[in-house]
């Protein structure tokens, strides 16, 4: 019996496809998320919009809160650690969280290095803005990626930018000759073997989900149409007027993303979305997506 192999780690990422992973801050929200059809929950102390508003250093959550959420639901429970903070990650692993998110939403602990994720029993998800960043994270052992978007804003523009960029860069690799790949790997600052694999298969070796700025069912469906295999929704649910209803609608939208009639139906009468921020009005220092490398 071999536990925590690359296959089982990647396997859980594959099982989450077509689903919605929802940020929750306590067991009660976790239950609401599960009842609404979340395929997993992300346990964290404050949702990104609150972190943005309150400022200060954002860290991994209290183990008591994570345990309470694990007890409350049957679906997978994920939790965030700071970029490069491998001790926080070890604690999350000891708590047996199902996925660790090395996340730019928390304050980075290391401004140079990400965690070497290969030595962990728990699988990791990491953010990316482009192909180079995606492949560096996979090289470090991430089993799942999510395009970063701009968390806590309710503005989908960055998620769209990152999804499109990734897709364009993957397509471009397929057009290059073998002799061009080493140079391309250098430009992307990514491992050559991963660059070669993407050039050959036309896809990333792990799934990519969307995150950052999803506030409505149609935002989620848009991400699916741009090639995301599932979505993470942070502040968009529990900071909206009617969280259970909106959560349920986003779940339906991710499944029925191709069906505009269905999208119209589930988008009806959801109440106010989260209070949103235009990303273009944010100063560079306030952008989470530029954290990590």
């Amino acid at each position, binding site marked *: 019996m071999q536990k925590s192999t690359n296959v089982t780690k990647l396997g859980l990422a594959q*099982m989450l*496809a077509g689903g919605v992973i929802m940020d929750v801050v306590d067991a009660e929200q976790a239950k609401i998320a599960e009842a609404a*059809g979340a*395929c997993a929950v992300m346990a964290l102390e404050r949702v990104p919009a609150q972190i943005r508003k309150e400022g200060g250093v954002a860290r991994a959550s209290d183990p008591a809160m994570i345990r309470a959420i*694990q007890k409350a639901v049957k679906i*997978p429970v994920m939790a965030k650690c700071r970029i490069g903070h491998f001790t926080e990650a070890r604690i999350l692993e000891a708590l047996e969280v199902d996925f660790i998110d090395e996340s730019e939403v928390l304050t980075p602990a290391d401004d140079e290095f990400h965690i070497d994720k290969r030595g962990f029993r728990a699988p990791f998800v990491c953010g990316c803005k482009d192909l180079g960043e995606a492949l560096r994270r996979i090289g470090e052992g991430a089993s799942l990626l999510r395009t970063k978007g701009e968390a806590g804003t309710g503005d989908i523009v960055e998620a769209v930018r990152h999804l499109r960029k990734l897709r364009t860069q993957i397509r471009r690799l397929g057009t290059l000759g073998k002799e061009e790949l080493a140079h391309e790997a250098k430009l992307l600052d990514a491992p050559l073997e991963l660059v070669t694999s993407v050039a050959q298969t036309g896809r990333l070796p792990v799934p990519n989900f969307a995150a950052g700025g999803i506030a409505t069912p149609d935002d989620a469906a848009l991400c699916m149409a741009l090639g995301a295999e599932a979505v993470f929704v942070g502040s968009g649910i529990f900071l909206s007027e009617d969280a259970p209803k909106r959560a349920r609608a986003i*779940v339906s939208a991710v*499944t029925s993303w*191709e069906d505009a009639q269905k999208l119209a139906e589930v988008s009806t009468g959801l109440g106010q979305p989260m209070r949103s921020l235009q990303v273009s009005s944010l100063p560079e220092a306030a952008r989470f997506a530029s954290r990590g490398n």
Partner: protein
Amino acid sequence: MARIGILAVQGAFAPHAQVLRSLGHEPVLLRAPEHLEGPLAGMVFPGGESSVQIDLVARLGLEPGIRAVLDAGVPVLATCAGLILLARDVDADSAHRQWSFGAVDLAVVRNGWGRQVDSFEDASEQGRPLIFIRAPRIVRVGPAVEIVDRYRGEPVLVRAGAIMAATFHPELSEGDGLHREVFGAAAASASAAQ
């Protein structure tokens, strides 16, 4: 080439589609009642989160169409969450008791091996590659259900009529053995149909 439906409301439907295509079949992703209207030569219930899948089956109005496919007796392959959807009793002795189609007389418990850190790979008693991901455990097998393969004495692959159900993930393993066994390859299925 046979049209094989795959329940595609949530979960790992894509790897099944890939295996079916490699066998020369036409996978049909099932997400709306009208997708179940055309004739299907078989159906796959993939892995994923069973609670999410069963909820979406209900809210999208897929239940009657799926029942019709099950009643038609075409070959069916169910893996992991898919097996949970078809079992008779799911977490029957707990507060998490879950509705299911009840097409296979089994009692199962979800996440029977533990959390993700306990997910594992091994081989079955008959040498099948086994990939278990937060897998369910079969705790009771009805008299009409045949145990096809076991792991350490426990049933992990069962057959009931035209339904083959696994607690593991053949679609993530190398090779197409179980899909071939259930659905055949394109040439074979074409000659069988004539």
